[in-house]
């Protein structure tokens, strides 16, 4: 496993590498290096994108064409987007790059085994993240061979030229030369149960609890909102599980034969059964605390539990909603500590 200019294995990268591996990739590397269980994988760095785009630019200009557009020229943006995306998705990779990516895929999945991977875009800036996220599919699950993997890498790259992405960049006058994208290629967990968790309450902002949402099968059913997940709240310090909302999880996402994900009905006996045991809830809480401590701030985490019961993290990013809220202190120290009791006795509570 040799990282290179084009490839960064999780073991070799961290958050500091964000400019070349993106936020998602940097975070997965960071978790791996902090000994937090993450399915193995690598990042196709931005340099690979540059090389690919450079080869295409030699044939026909791309970036100057985008920069020539105004943000109000929606028809022109739409036409150019369609043209560029098709071009990026169809164009072959430069030979050397192709060989390097195939070799990395083989190393990850084992020659001839074709273990499934997930291919996910990993934006290098908050702006790019905001722009590329505008409702676009940039995560490809259960990808079962190298050719498909490379195809989806190109699809991720192409998503940089979606209509909303271009419109966004034009609106803010962002230079096209700074636009790049890294792509994560990660072994996929055949999850028995998966979901998300927050190291504070998304409802109240409480930092003393971990809120866990989960459902049967792959986590995409939870992330996409197609299933009402079970919800558990566990206290970080005492380990008390204060909420156990077990919901009717009518469908689940499972790997499809030949790649991708299919939605199937959940067997009757599992629909209303809790998807996590108390021991698993506790283990998830412990991992969540470890991640939060590592980053020093509240986290929003995707997790999965495989059929052997092993817990793996698929993603961790800083929690943003509550962290960015202005909040006045609950109480300030009083010159006379007895004054505090007036909160109870003083009335108008």
């Amino acid at each position, binding site marked *: 496993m040799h990282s290179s200019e084009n490839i960064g294995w999780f073991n070799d990268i961290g958050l500091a590498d964000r400019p070349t591996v993106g936020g998602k990739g940097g975070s997965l590397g960071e978790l791996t290096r902090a000994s937090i269980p993450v399915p193995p994988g690598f990042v196709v760095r931005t340099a690979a994108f540059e090389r690919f785009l450079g080869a295409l630019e030699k044939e026909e200009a791309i970036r100057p064409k985008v920069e020539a557009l105004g943000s109000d020229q929606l028809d022109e943006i739409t036409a150019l987007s369609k043209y560029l995306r098709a071009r990026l998705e169809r164009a072959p990779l430069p030979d050397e790059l192709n060989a390097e990516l195939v070799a990395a895929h083989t190393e990850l999945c084992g020659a001839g085994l074709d273990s499934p991977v997930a291919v996910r875009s990993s934006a290098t800036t908050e702006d790019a993240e905001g722009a590329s996220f505008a409702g676009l599919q940039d995560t490809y699950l259960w990808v079962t061979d190298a050719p498909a993997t490379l195809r989806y890498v190109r699809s991720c790259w192409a998503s940089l030229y979606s209509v909303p992405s271009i419109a966004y960049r034009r609106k803010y006058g962002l230079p096209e030369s700074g636009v790049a994208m890294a792509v994560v290629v990660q072994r996929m967990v055949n999850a028995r149960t998966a979901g998300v968790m927050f190291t504070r309450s998304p409802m*109240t902002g409480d930092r003393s609890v971990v809120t866990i949402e989960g459902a049967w099968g792959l986590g995409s059913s939870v992330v996409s909102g197609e299933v009402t997940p079970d919800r558990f709240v566990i206290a970080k310090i005492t380990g008390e599980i204060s909420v156990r909302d077990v919901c009717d999880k009518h469908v689940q996402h499972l790997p499809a034969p030949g790649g991708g994900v299919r939605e199937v009905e959940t067997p009757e006996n599992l629909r209303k059964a809790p998807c996590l045991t108390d021991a698993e809830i506790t283990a998830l809480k412990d991992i969540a605390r470890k991640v939060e401590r590592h980053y020093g701030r509240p986290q929003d985490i995707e997790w999965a539990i495989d059929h052997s019961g092993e817990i793996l993290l698929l993603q961790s990013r800083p929690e943003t909603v509550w962290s960015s809220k202005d909040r006045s202190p609950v109480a300030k120290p009083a010159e006379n*500590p007895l004054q*505090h*009791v007036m909160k109870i006795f*003083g009335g108008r509570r």
Partner: protein
Amino acid sequence: MRATAEQKGFPLPSSLKVVPGTEAAQAAYPYYMQFAKEDDERFWFYNSMHFPEPMCVFDMITAEAAYCALGSANTRVHSLPTTLGIDCRIINGRVYIGGNAVTDPAEIAKRTQEFQRRAFYYYANWERLFAQWKDKMMALIQEAEALPKLDLPEFEPLEHVHAGRGIASNHYILQTYQKTLEGYFRMWQHHFEFLLLGYGAYLTFFDFCKKAFPEISDQTVARMVAGIEAEIFRPDDELRRLAKCAIELGVDGQFREGVSPDEIIKSMERLGKPGVAWLKELAASRYPWFNINVGDGFYHYHRSWNDDLSMPFAALPGYIANAKKGERLERQTEKLMAERKQLIADYRELLETDEERAAYDQMIELAHRVFPYVEGHKFYCEHWYTNLFFNKIREFGGLLAQHGFFPKAEDVFQLSHYELEAAIVDLMTSWSNGSPPRGVSRWPAIVRQRKAAIAEWAKHETAPALGPVPDIIDDPAIVMLWGITRENLDAWLTAGEKPDSNEIRGFAASNGVVEGVARVVKSAEEIGRLRKGDILVCQITNPSWAPVFQNISAAVSDIGGSMSHAAIVAREYGLPAVVGTGTGTQKIKDGQRIRVDGGRGVVTLLE
């Protein structure tokens, strides 16, 4: 707001009818506790926390003395800014109470100024005043214990005559009765000297925690504040000690199921030296630690361990077995203390700013200062003193029964304390003039009638609240002591709309989920029916029930909050518990399978 409340409000007091046939029994309660027309203007709630069963007329003295003392502490002594005292009414044996809020801002300002001169002085001098309180309380207990035995001999003892005492025995009967009542009223004054201030300081910290950590459980805050060596743990600790002594003395074989305490004591005596040595240890534990009753001090029939040894003795075989298995019987106070310290430090670390940490430190310091009183007073007041009081009244009952006023000593509790004084004067007059007492032809029928009324009232459910719902509940006493909030009331108003629900809600008292067989235990005598692994369903538990917790798998109670005895002991034993369900003993059938989720405060009926 008012309009909404009336649309969805509670019944008015005037709409509540006395159960037909019990009118005379209802009339026996003092006139100032009867509902009147003007009471329709105010909000009242059923105090099921303290009075879960219909109150016989004598026992109403517990409400009378308590509210008298609570009101004076709030209104006149400490001057709580937003509240005066509590009014109390009774209908069909059910006790309703209503707070007296202060709403005029000028009045609140004036009372606030007074409060800070009074209550703050108590907080600042807490340890000294509390030490003084214990002395006062012990002196009061000694006074009650020293009250003379009741005796009306055929002739005044010769030595009294020769000594020229000049006062005959009948006078002392009345005097002793009046002293008994006086002492009881005084005990309640002591009870409330610190109580509201103590709860207030605790709630200040509680409130902070709930704001800083909106999802923190009540029990976690309680664990941060709770004392480790509080009096309420002592009776149970004494049992463990006695179990250990029995093993060390080699007399543990005497404790077998189905053998009565009397038989065990006799067999100990027969054993000679080691048996007598154990009995000596027992005596040391009994005074004072078996002075706990099996209730909460509001019913004469909640007897103490000392009055009925079957409860403590029933627990001894279990403790002996555990000790033989090598379990450590002593509570590991150092470990518990370290855990509490760690818990406080861990939550402190989760706070966001140093400013908040400094405020947290100030508040927990105050909560720790006041809490020994909050935890400890009950042993002295509701248990020890109350047992002495009811037993003394029982003695009067014995004397009156002996003179034909009613069949049994226990019947005395069917008379109000005013009526009892009249009966005593009747008896002292009769003893003095040689005529038969008039009460002999009066009381037996009345006692029968009132007993029948209590039995009848027990069959009727009563409204949880009456009258217009207040827009806000801003009375710290009501919030602190009864946990009544606007949200509770709204829940009560809608409770009737889902009669088929198989869920019963209460306070989440101790974490964990357990499924099992419910054992509905309505009184302490039924404790023997509990089998290992059963879920205890009861109205209320108190320190005397602690031994039961070694065998059960979970606990559900009608009454109590997160700091109630059942909650504290359940946490100690690591058992799931839901307390304050209100109706658990009514809705759960004996032998039914139920699920107790102590983390959420929900009991689910499974069949």
